[in-house]
């Protein structure tokens, strides 16, 4: 289900097409070249378990409309928390103030409904499910974690479901609507072994309805959470310094997200502040490497049917055969570069103006088995489990924090390692990828990207790769 018609969405927000035209006209009345309206009604529900019982529920309702006027590459933005025409028009006039003239354009806007492919059809809407049915899975996950290892002394589990109704229209005449589900489950446990205490966690997130929950999901999360925590007791900090790093398939996509993804976002390049600003069309890494930012993976956390500027979702090659092929564009940057937007104009909510953001970023598979990649390393580390990362766009220095991994000694994985930061430089790290595995895996965790105060659900993936040198934290 979730094929919501725009007619139903107009009714949901209590507005007519005529209202939308009036608000758009007000947003353009000082001479702006483009305007859009983004309606959103979101309900998030969470239930959580602590100390063995599901004992907390929380819900949040958020409702409003964001109004944007664009004049050249300048943006005026305002929002209101209702959809009363007079309030929307007042906000539109505030946004319109970004334009410098007082000339009213003689613009007749014709809104036409636009349909997009649905990359997240659901079976059971969260709105139809009561808390009892959700609670069962949360409790099961806790119980399974305690069953799996006697050293478990504490566990927490959280289940979050979000349903967003959105409607978009712009001065180019697009009128579209979307129903965006998001489901997320997170488990953590604390274990005690003698006097040592360690904590670990696991999570999954998809754009799915209640069908997200299953016994298989519970078992997977329980196994991962316990295994992750148990590994911490055996793990040490490696000797730090510059060394080869094998990035295991999956969550290691954080390398792409931090090392190059942000620096490829076109707003930074348009302003000339990215280290990749002069690199479009140039060879930046081995010709065997292709890197994609993809909003079309069904049910993925970073999937979108259309972006928050009404541009159809797409699979964008940012690196093709080792050449920097495309930046990630919103409408403003696409106009600046005179290219078509790539469907990366995203926003956290109606309270925020859109800007270029990643969706699901990954590298396509190569043809080398992972064990052969590890075998090439005499002394280094293998990393496959991460918490957070960061990048400096201009300098290109990026980091990611490794929760667990392994030492590589003479071509074999040996001692587990934990809690180390890895730092490198984006262009150099990309050029230093010397081997690409045949095992691409898209990570299914709860990745959330932060940029200029806006959080965005994203995904990432990687086949196992060898980066010939990075600076590894350690003793």
């Amino acid at each position, binding site marked *: 289900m979730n094929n919501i018609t725009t007619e139903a969405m107009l009714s949901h927000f209590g507005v007519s097409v005529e209202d939308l035209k009036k608000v758009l006209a007000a947003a353009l009345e000082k001479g702006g070249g483009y305007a859009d309206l983004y309606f959103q009604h979101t309900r998030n529900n969470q*239930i959580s378990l602590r*100390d063995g*019982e*599901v*004992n*907390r*529920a*929380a*819900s*949040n*309702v*958020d*409702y*409003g409309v964001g109004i944007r006027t664009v004049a050249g590459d*300048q*943006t005026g933005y*305002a929002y209101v*928390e209702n959809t009363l025409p007079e309030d929307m028009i007042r906000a539109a006039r505030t946004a319109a103030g*970004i334009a410098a003239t007082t000339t009213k354009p003689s613009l007749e806007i014709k809104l036409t409904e636009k349909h997009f492919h649905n990359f997240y059809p659901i079976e059971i809407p969260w709105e139809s499910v*009561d*808390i009892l049915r959700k*609670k069962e899975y949360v409790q099961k996950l806790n119980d399974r974690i305690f069953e799996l290892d006697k050293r478990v*002394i*504490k566990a927490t589990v959280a289940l979050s479901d979000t349903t967003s109704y959105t409607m978009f229209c712009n001065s180019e005449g697009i009128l579209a609507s979307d129903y965006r589900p998001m489901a997320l489950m997170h488990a953590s446990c*604390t274990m005690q072994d003698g006097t040592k*205490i*360690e*904590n670990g966690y696991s999570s999954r997130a998809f754009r799915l309805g209640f069908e997200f929950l299953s016994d298989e999901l519970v078992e997977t999360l329980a196994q991962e959470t316990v295994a992750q925590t148990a590994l911490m007791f055996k793990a040490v*900090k490696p000797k*730090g*310094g*510059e060394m080869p790093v094998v990035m295991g398939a999956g969550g290691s996509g954080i390398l792409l997200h931090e090392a190059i993804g942000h620096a490829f976002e076109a707003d930074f390049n348009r*302003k*000339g502040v*990215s280290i990749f600003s002069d690199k479009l069309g140039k060879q930046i890494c081995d010709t065997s490497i292709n890197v994609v930012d993809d909003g079309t993976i069904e049910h993925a956390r970073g999937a979108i049917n259309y972006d928050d500027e009404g541009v159809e979702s797409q699979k964008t090659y940012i690196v093709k055969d080792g050449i920097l092929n495309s930046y990630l564009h919103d409408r403003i940057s696409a106009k600046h570069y005179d290219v078509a937007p790539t469907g990366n104009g995203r926003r956290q909510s109606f*309270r925020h*103006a859109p800007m270029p953001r990643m969706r699901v970023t990954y590298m396509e598979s190569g043809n080398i088995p992972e064990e052969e990649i590890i075998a090439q390393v005499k002394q280094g580390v293998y990393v496959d489990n991460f*918490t*957070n*990362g*960061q990048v400096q766009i*201009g*300098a*290109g*220095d*990026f*980091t990611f*924090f490794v929760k667990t991994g392994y030492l590589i000694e003479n071509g074999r994985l040996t001692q587990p390692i*934990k*809690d*180390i*930061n*890895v*730092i490198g*430089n984006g*262009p150099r790290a990309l050029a230093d990828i010397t081997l690409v595995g045949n095992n691409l895996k898209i990570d299914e965790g709860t990745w959330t990207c932060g940029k200029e105060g806006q959080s965005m659900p994203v995904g990432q993936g990687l086949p196992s790769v060898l980066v010939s040198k990075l*600076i*590894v*934290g*350690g003793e």
Partner: protein
Amino acid sequence: MITQEQKDIAQGCMEFALKNGCQQARISFAVADNSSFDFRNTQLDKLQQSSENKLYIELFVDGRYGSFSTNRLEREEVQALIREGITSTRFLAQDLARRLPDSSRYYLGKGDGLELYDDAYLSINVNSKIDLLKQTTAEVYGKDKRVISVTSSYEDNRSAEYMVASNGFEAFSQDSSFSLSSEVALKTDTDARPESFWYDSTIFWKDLQKEGIARKAFERALGKVGQKQTASGKYQLLLDNTQASRIVSPLISALMGTSLQQKNSFLIDRLGKQIMPPSVTIHDTPHLARSFGARWYDGEGVATSDLQIIEKGVLQTYFIDTYNSVKMGVEPTISSPSILNFELGNTDFNGLLRQIEHGIWVSAFNGGNTNQTTGDFSMGIEGFLIKDGKVVSPIGEMNITGNILDLWKNLVAVGNDPRKNSPWKIPALLFEGVLFNGL
């Protein structure tokens, strides 16, 4: 900022909740206004203005607890949310530790005296904000051919909250803030485009630093030109007053009731013990007027008071809210600190720098994390190599790694120069024997 109508909505919610099955309830009505402007190089890049309202509803039903929030304030919508909330909460397991604070612990004053709101907020017109941005940007843009982008941002906010609880709490708070920042990016003879920022933020418009922000950002960016790694090894570590909070924050997290009760803290069973050198004394001073972070009561309505956190290196308190106090069987304190004040040393940042024989001044962290269960940390850094009290060269793309308590044991000097515009007033700090990972 809060109208009588908004107070009535909050009171009405509480009455409705109590009539429909709740034994206790706490309701907050929050409002905020915001305006922000970005000016890039030669033109206004972005303007944004907004006002928002939010209702926070906490329900205590038959020994169970649920929390709900909405910005849809129509009476029917809110009542439906409360009814649904009560139904959902009844499906939960009982958790008898969930309760409102004992009413004897509530703040009972009128909320005056902290000077957190600027009455001039509404009188500052848009043109003066934009003119300020133009002047700030012009401090740097076009003055040096290496400058490729200057973005200056101005933002002001005012917010207010009215909170009531069914066992006799009612209070109102209001604050304002003004901030001016500038980001400067440079292009030199390499691919790297060094960038940096500087900012000021204040509660009162007239206190805001209106000159020199972009120049300072430019100087900081210029300092990064030619950054390179240096050799791995142990160095003295100097943190300036913009960065020192990064190594205080894991300590504060580890002192929170939830971390302790969940056994997810490296400071379990350390109350009354020496965890830092005797040179460290940290107090919470929540009633410091005209300071960000000042408050008469915490998120539960519990009255704040001056509190010793670390006294000559000895841990004096945990931050225990009502829920965790019942869970842990200990007396509650306060849910979180408000304003951290360090007992200051005798010299400022420059004086500490002059004491360094072989060290690194960390001017910014780049990512990294701390394991809250063990205190182990590893963080990316950038800064400057220091030899014999002098800056030698900019460094970057390096890590520091260790354990947070071990790091604090190696503290050798506390500065006297906390940054005023932060609720955590932490001066520059000098450590020895810190492991840096580089070449």
